[in-house]
């Protein structure tokens, strides 16, 4: 018998090319492949069907809103799906390239989960008392 967790939550975090929280790409040439890893953890007390949207935005692009619980308006460049049991963590390699040079590109990683009642993936999740969103980002300068 295990006690019920007080709060339910997801985790999402980017990792460097070696799968460690170090050596994050900060400057790449236009068109050069950016290799990172994404770690996802499920602590919702049950199996979950998860989807990670990888979005690339420039300075002006809206980042996900933690208060309004809305995702970024940038279009999704990549999607990674997986099923995770409770207290399970999974890491995925993500490779993408940015073709236009510029500074302060933000590569955003949004975690969505499958809501059976709604019949689709949803961004905000209920932690037992309030709704929350899980997302992370890295900043990259793209040189010509």
């Amino acid at each position, binding site marked *: 018998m295990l006690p019920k967790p007080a709060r339910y939550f997801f985790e999402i975090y980017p990792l460097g090319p070696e799968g460690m929280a170090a050596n994050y790409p900060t400057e790449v040439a236009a068109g050069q492949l950016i290799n990172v890893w994404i770690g996802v953890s499920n602590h919702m007390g*049950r*199996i979950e*069907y998860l989807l990670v949207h990888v979005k690339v935005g420039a300075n002006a692009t809206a980042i996900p809103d933690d208060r309004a619980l809305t995702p970024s308006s940038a279009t999704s460049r990549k999607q990674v*799906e*997986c*099923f*995770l*049991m409770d207290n*399970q963590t999974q890491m995925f390699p993500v490779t993408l390239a940015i073709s236009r040079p510029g500074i302060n590109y933000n590569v955003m990683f949004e975690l969505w989960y*499958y809501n*059976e009642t709604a019949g689709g993936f949803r961004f905000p999740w209920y932690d037992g008392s309030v709704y929350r969103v899980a997302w992370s980002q890295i900043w990259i300068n793209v040189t010509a």
Partner: protein
Amino acid sequence: MRGTLALIIITTFVCITLSLPLFLPYFVAANTVPEVDKAIRDANENLVDAFTAVVAAEKSGADVTVLTADLNKALGLLNEARGCYEKGDYSLAIACADNSTMISKGIIQDAKALRERAVQEGTFRGIVTIVGAILVIVAVCVLGYFGWRWWNQRSYKKLMEMRVKEVGVANSG
């Protein structure tokens, strides 16, 4: 003249035969796009159904570790099918999607069986708990009753065996 005509016919036939493989995928693809769409859609729907079945099984207390691995396997095949579809490899896309559907259907059946077993085990555990509690209560009552009787008898026996002791009698003579 007849020889030239035969040569033209043979040349045309050879040209058509040789160029057929170049155009064949186009014609085949045109015919199979809806089939691939349907196969991928079916695989997706079955995967969601399998997930729902696994959630229900887990809720009833079943261990869904193996089913989760199978779900990821079905998802991997579905993603492969989508990739093949984008590349134009429709036959492989259909094969992957069908495999994914097959695994998902297997998961649904396994999840149902696991759920039923978990429910039965839960019911059995409940019955054992209730019966065990009743047995413990009855045992405590019986032991308490006999213990009380034994204690009473012991006290009574002790009382009956008591003798009067003369203490502090003054010799007045």
